[in-house]
């Protein structure tokens, strides 16, 4: 019995490998994108198409198009994160963008 323990360990390691290293699922991406979108909205800096992309990702996932859903959610996440960065930066630096004649 004791002899088997290392084998068990190896088995568990092999099985968990893919989940540890796999890209996040479409569902996870959608949740992350939605969180980023909310963050941007709280700053008043949400972009125009982010919510649409998330809705489209949800729809694709429901239809079982996992890959397309992940792509759409990934783009929404990228937008959400950029918008949060933009809003945070602008809040602190807007005075530098006043044009001088």
């Amino acid at each position, binding site marked *: 019995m004791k002899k088997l323990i290392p084998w068990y360990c190896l088995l568990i390691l092999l099985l968990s490998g893919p989940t540890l290293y796999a890209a996040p699922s479409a569902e996870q991406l959608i949740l992350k994108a939605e969180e980023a979108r909310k963050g941007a909205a709280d700053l008043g800096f949400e*972009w125009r198409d982010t919510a649409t992309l998330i809705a489209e990702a949800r729809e694709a996932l429901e239809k079982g198009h996992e890959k397309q859903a992940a792509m759409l959610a990934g783009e929404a996440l990228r937008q959400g994160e950029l918008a949060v960065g933009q*809003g945070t930066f602008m*809040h602190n630096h807007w005075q530098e*963008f*006043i*044009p*001088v004649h």
Partner: protein
Amino acid sequence: MKKISQSRMFLLLLPITMLWSCQTKDYSALVNKDIEEFRAYFTERFPEVELDDFADGVYAIDDNAREQWLAMEDFPPYSIAVEEGQALFENSFSNGKTYTDCFPEGGAVRHNYPYFDEQRNMVVTLEMAINECRSANGEPPLEYKKGDIAKISSYMAYISRGKPVEVKVSSQGAYEAYLKGKEFFYAKRGQLNMSCAGCHMRYSGRRLRSEVISPALGHPVHFPVFRLKWGEIGTLQRRYAGCNRNIGAKPLAIQGEEYRNLEFFQTVMSNGMHFNGPASRK
């Protein structure tokens, strides 16, 4: 020992300095300095345009477009909206009262808006006041962007033509609202990372696709606008939403705090000009 007395000293001085700075802060001086710089930007860029003519937007700076526009002014497309607005304005509510019970001078009060309401600590716009008059009289509110509210607002603007713009910023609350509006105007946003100032200052007078970009000076004073593209009359904040959408930003709520502060800032920048709404635009 030394440390204690220092911090005590600090605690003692803190409220005194706070009080002092509150009392001596001259908000209108701060704002007037902004107005001066803002105006100078445009008078240097368009030296041939008189201050009041900036109210005509792109038609103040583009001679070709101005000719067509003047021809259109012979039978201005907003005149129907003004007539309908008058009828709506004079119509009585179900309790027998009318808008004149809320607005003095028969409604010729466009120039009293927007203003900072000290009690409620917020900017009140004309459209908002129209809806508040309705709810005070048990009527349902009107949709904000277009339709009846834009018509009533057009009528009120029409009978207030020539009244001077003199928005006051005379308290800390008002100054904070003003600063928020100012930040909104200068902050870049959206997918294109553009600010209002980016287009309506830096690129004013330049062509963007089929349109020449108007100078931001005097933006609010001619609204509401009958826009040929809309085929109807619309409010200033409807235009804000459109400009936000065009640069890939999600528009904020019409008559929400952000757009009301932006309208407050833009109208303060127009102080000294004269209301001449409604107007027509491409």
